[in-house]
């Protein structure tokens, strides 16, 4: 089996990542690897740095990386702006998606798809700029069909796409809109930041089914959650527990069940006040 043609598997590798927000260190040496085709869960109590990690992976300008690296497909993405990371195949489903008045979901998503399909090759002698004039436009009929399919998958109301992005959306609609975007853009690595928060049980089921329909050998998922509830619907291959800016425990799907029964106190109780705790 070792002699088989090597398959290019996209890998997200986070090594010894330290990040600050307003000079306060939030991430204190995170190590994590997610490969295409795998689903990982990142759990932990509030304030442990999970959302910071999600934002740092995409390059939010508010966070300053002081040490470590994030590699995706072997490229150090810390040097890239958020749009280039997206075009490389990374995706973030936001915990609190911004609303953008006056820009409709359909309009924006088509531009986004054009940009993402163009991709980003850091080694290309003249890297694509992502500007509209250099981009191949997505065929409207094809786009319509793609949207229709994905909207049915996520049971999204058809009026939805003509509304302004997240403007006046309910909590559940926002989360569904995020997963709809993921379904349309087809990233290779998706970080789902608290996608389950604010969802009632029906919405949670729809969103989870949507995510499950998208999983496969081409998609790696890092699902960030506070509650193990969503992991009843989306089965992770691995579970990581984060606390005070570090991964303190890793395990298989059983770890999530154990956390559900015992709570975080079981893991972190003895770590409180101990800054030297390691995984």
């Amino acid at each position, binding site marked *: 089996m070792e002699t088989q043609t090597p398959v290019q598997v996209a890998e997200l590798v986070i090594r010894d990542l330290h990040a600050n927000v307003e000079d306060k260190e939030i991430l204190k040496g995170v190590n994590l690897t997610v490969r295409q085709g795998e689903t990982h869960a990142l759990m932990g109590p509030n304030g442990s740095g999970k959302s910071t990690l999600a934002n740092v992976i995409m390059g939010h300008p508010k966070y300053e990386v002081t040490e470590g690296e994030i590699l995706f497909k072997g490229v150090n993405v810390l040097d890239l702006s*958020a749009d280039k990371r997206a075009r490389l195949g990374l995706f973030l489903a936001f915990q609190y998606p911004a609303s953008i008045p006056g820009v409709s979901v359909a309009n924006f998503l088509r531009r986004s798809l054009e*940009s993402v399909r163009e991709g980003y090759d850091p080694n290309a002698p003249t890297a694509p700029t992502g500007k509209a004039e250099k981009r191949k436009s997505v065929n409207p009929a094809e786009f319509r069909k793609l949207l*229709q399919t994905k909207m049915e998958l996520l049971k999204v109301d058809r009026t939805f796409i003509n509304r302004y992005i997240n403007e006046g959306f309910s909590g559940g609609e926002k989360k569904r809109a995020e997963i709809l975007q993921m379904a349309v853009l087809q990233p290779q690595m998706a970080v789902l930041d608290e996608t389950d928060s604010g969802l009632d049980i029906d919405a949670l089921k729809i969103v989870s089914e949507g995510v499950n329909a998208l999983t496969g050998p081409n998609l790696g998922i890092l699902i960030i959650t506070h509650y193990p509830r969503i992991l009843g619907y989306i089965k992770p291959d691995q579970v990581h527990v984060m606390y005070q800016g570090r991964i303190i425990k890793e395990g298989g799907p059983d770890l999530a069940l154990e956390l559900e029964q015992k709570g975080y106190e079981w893991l972190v109780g003895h770590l409180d006040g101990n800054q030297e705790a390691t995984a």
Partner: protein
Amino acid sequence: MTETLTKGFTRAGVEALSRLKGEPAWMLEKRLAAWETYEQTPAPLGRRGDLGIMRRVAEYKLEKLVPFAANGASSNGHVALPAWESGLLVQHNSNVVASELDPLLSAQGVLLTDLDTAVREYPDLVQKYFMTGVTANTNKYTALHGAFWSGGLFLYVPKGVKVSRPVLARYLLDQPDATNFAHTLIIAEPDSQVIYIEETASSLPEGATALFNGVAEIFAKAGAHVQFNAVQDFGPGVYNVTTKHGVPEKDSYIHWIVADLGADTTLANLGTTMAGSGSNGDIVGVLFATGKQLIQINTLSEHAALSTSADTLFKGVVDDDARVDFEGLIKVAPGAQQTNSYLSDHTLLLSDQARAESIPSLEIAANDVKASHGATTGQIDAEQLFYLMCRGVPEEEARRLIVQGFFEPVLEKIPSDELRSRLRRSIVRKMTKGTQVVDETEWHDVTDQWDIEGAGAEAVQIAGGDE
């Protein structure tokens, strides 16, 4: 007319202009009276601590300007009328070079001529309305206009006549130190309807300046509907000073849509006096200032009768070193009960040097009134920008999307597709600093994006709703 008056503005110049035009005595008298006012009136200098725009206008050297510079053909010139328009008038610097009206409308009694012709042919109508909506003593610039007005448009719509396709006026400036004193006079008789579109443009040699001093007066009689659209897209070097005022009578409306995109310096006064009960005067405004552009907008919604309403909404984007100063006033007369009046102004600043001031105010002398005003000024939201970039959209384009989105709710209020597309193109051109005008593919792309937004409902046909 190929004559040109000597430079600068004088009483002798007023007389020479009137003689040149062969005007009746009553018009010369009006001009001279306006000149008296001009001489006695100081230029408005604005309020303390404002952005200095009115002062800049006041400092403009008028003595080098040519009060009347005729160009090319006289007003007999004929032009082809585009299919979507029912009338067209073109003024080139000081005089009108073409005017056309759909013969079917002429047969119904609609009148469309330059105002000079109207003074000769329809003296009763002109005498009755001319400079009664905007009086010469409104400010120093309207006084100068009253003395030196030339060309412009006279549009008369008889009782009950509905002009469905728009009447278009184009006002152009292309000579250094030229002036364009276009006077627009629109009279809509009871139960008539008309849509008017005014476009202003210029092409001056680099470094040259010229003055546009335009006045528009709109009279809407009982039950009449007038839609007044103005797209100001002057090039560099133009000082643009305008005063527009509408007077809707009982159960009539005058709806204004104004866009100020060009000119170095703009001072625009725009107002409506709701003179009849049940009348309405909405204003939608779009401003986009870049480079060192200065724009001062003063709006007035004056409620002078029972149960009138007005809604003023401005959206402005200010980039580079540009400045925009907005002053809006809602005025409710004693006895103007059951007034509904709203005023809001929202500004997006795209650079650290850009400046905007917004001063909305209320003067209310009746007690059964609903009136409110609001103003916001802000910058592009970092979270919105990050969100769009996380979806693969490069920063520059993401900013453009946010600006388009900022304007979209006001653009949606524009009933004419033609005008809306035109404005969108102008906005895109400004956002890209003109770089996209030459790029055909980008044009299509941009238009397409907007189209999707507008046509979304049928663009995505999905059978059955889920909720």
